[in-house]
């Protein structure tokens, strides 16, 4: 019984906590095993630093961030006169926590007024699915939720959102496929106001961030929200696929510029992807992950706890090792 089991207990208290630790176990696999391999029974030498850098890169942390991290480790080894690789692991965890921060980033929602959440991202990252899950989560918290089917481009996207709407038990405002998304957004806002909704979540079509005209369309959608409902656009969430590599940085940057992204939904964390890119995004664009998708079921969306995430990433192997 160590730190990890306590951690697990604390996770159980959160929404679907069991699942988070399950998914983190998967996320840890590979990544933590390798970090572990690098550290075990070794002295600190140049080779170790190089391997560590490789492991971080392999976890999609990114070359820049990985090099920075390792550079910091080098300094601290010098200053603190560290000798054993085991000590280095703690230092690495500390440095990553420093970047990630240790507060839990929550959705910024106000009571007694309409909160609009706009969900953006490239194609296939899981925007519509995440919206379905988020609607379910918020409704379970007693909120009145309406969805706006702003993806009028992809075949079947509107139907997909409607199915999620039914599952979550919330209304979906939609037009026909091919309609102007800005018009859908306008109608959805009017409906949300008329029906006294607490939260309106707007789906948008997946778009590659380097398509200028599509990004312009997104700006237009945002302008309409700003115009129609002063001060109620609370969150612009960038849905990010955890399997994405360094391109995620480019997505965070350009979507950030075009839509004023306020946070990230990290999806598909139930796979083997390591999610290391999150560290890079926080470091370079100060964007926090606010929600994580950890499975296909409607309840598989959770808050992201940086502290727990990093701790769980690095401490389990240590813990189990101590126990075993």
């Amino acid at each position, binding site marked *: 019984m160590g730190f990890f089991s306590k951690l697990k207990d604390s996770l159980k208290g959160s929404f679907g906590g069991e699942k988070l630790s399950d998914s983190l176990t998967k996320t840890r696999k590979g990544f933590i095993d390798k970090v572990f391999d690098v550290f075990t029974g070794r002295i600190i030498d140049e080779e170790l630093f190089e391997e560590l850098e490789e492991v971080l890169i392999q976890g999609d942390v990114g070359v820049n961030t990985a090099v920075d991290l390792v550079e910091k480790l080098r300094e601290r080894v010098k200053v603190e006169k560290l000798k054993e690789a085991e000590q280095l692991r703690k230092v690495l965890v500390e440095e990553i926590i420093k970047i990630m921060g240790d507060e839990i980033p929550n959705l910024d929602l106000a009571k007694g007024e309409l909160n609009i959440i706009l969900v953006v991202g490239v194609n296939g990252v899981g925007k519509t699915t995440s919206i379905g899950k988020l609607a379910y989560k918020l409704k379970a918290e007693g909120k009145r939720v309406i969805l706006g089917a702003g993806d009028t481009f992809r075949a079947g996207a509107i139907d997909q959102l409607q199915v999620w709407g039914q599952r979550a038990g919330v209304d979906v405002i939609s037009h026909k496929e091919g309609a102007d998304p800005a018009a859908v957004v306008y109608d959805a806002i009017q409906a949300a106001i008329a029906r006294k909704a607490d939260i309106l979540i707007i789906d948008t079509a997946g778009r590659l961030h*380097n398509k200028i005209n599509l990004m312009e369309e997104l700006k237009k959608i945002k302008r309409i929200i700003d115009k129609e409902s002063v001060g109620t656009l609370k969150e612009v969430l960038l849905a990010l696929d955890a399997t994405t590599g360094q391109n995620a940085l480019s997505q965070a940057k350009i979507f950030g510029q075009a839509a004023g992204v306020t946070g990230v939904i990290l999806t598909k964390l139930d796979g083997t992807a390591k999610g290391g890119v999150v560290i890079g995004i926080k470091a370079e664009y100060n964007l926090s992950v606010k929600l994580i998708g950890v499975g296909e079921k409607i309840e598989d969306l959770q808050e992201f706890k940086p502290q727990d995430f990093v701790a769980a990433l690095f401490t389990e192997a240590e813990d189990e090792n101590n126990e075993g």
Partner: protein
Amino acid sequence: MAFESLGEKLQGIFKKLKGQGKISDKDLKAALREVRVALLEADVNYKVVKDFVNTINERALGQDVLESLTPGQQVIKIVNDELTQLMGGAQSKLEISPKPPTVIMMIGLQGSGKTTSTGKLGRFLKKQGRSPLLVACDIYRPAAIKQLQVLGEQLEIPVFSMGDKTSPVDIAKAALNHATYHGNDLVLLDTAGRLHIDEALMAELSAIKNEVKPTEILLVVDAMTGQDAVNVAEKFNELLNLTGVVLTKLDGDTRGGAALSVKAVTGKPIKFVGMGEKLDALEPFHPERMASRILGMGDVLTLIEKAQENFDSKQAQELQQKLLKAEFTLEDFLTQMQQMKNMGPLDQVMDMIPGMNKAKLKGLEFDEKEFVRFQAVIQSMTKDERRNPHKINGSRRKRIALGSGTKVQDVNRLLKQFEQAQKMMKQLSGMASGKGKKGKLKLPFM
């Protein structure tokens, strides 16, 4: 454009080498270190990068490259060779079963673009005179069947579905019978996205495979995938023995390292790449062309093929004649712009032209709206003006702007661009008539 940054980085590295008459062991090492970082930043799997850099190092040292007269060029050639090798050597075509129907199974993670790629591939094969049947085997994702049906409608390709209550294995089996009965010689199975570690769903794929014995099993991979691409591809390959890969979303700004990794790790070729949201945006993958695209040597072959597909050959020949005689007019400019538009997004076309300097192009926005404006301007000119643009003076410009609903500045800009195009034409026609194995370069560029 995908690979842009990787290409730029490598070009930068090689530029340094190129300029040197002599390359020391140290220079080579430094360059290779940069190559390593560039590849890693491009999401190429780190093991693949290691092997790649080692191979180049060995070859460069082994062939007395460093002592040769043009060591920089030699190294670039080696990198180009190895890059091509890494991406699969020669082009790998789709296998067609001698006994129809040929079954093609599309598999992959969620959101990689299977359904869209299935539609695009259907269109590609239909264009080759085949009679494909799209089969909706994704019974899990809400509205996945609807998505395929809408695509089928748009493409006028039949879609076979049995709703979301029948097992995908039974659907696939029934689809095969349906195809045989209805004379479809190709069956494209769109399967549900799944995690490679989801044993139940992976077993379902095996069951479909055993039932319908597909000729092709194509793994659809998102070009933006990071280091995990290798794990995913390995797992799918292990279980199903893939026949190839479809790489999607390559029209983003991803450096596309997944493309390099997947082939290297599975040994399975990339057969198609998805280059855009439109349904015709699927291309057969040519490793050697992509390699030279990455290295900034351009991809003239693809450009020519695209041009042949979209350009009226008679028109092109006429244009070429005019080019050679330097009689290029605004009328030709208009036709040419229209044809260019048919070839696809301009920045993609530009990427294929050798010597197109990325940095130089950066200031140029290729605005498709500008095309429409130019078209209006040219159409507001008299025939005489179109043929003799030098006649267009101030008052004519005002009239043209008024007539086309544009501003005089727009007219000026068009005339300026036309002038530049004329200049470029002259240069190119000089190049084209100078040499060329297959006759002349039949390419009017902007």
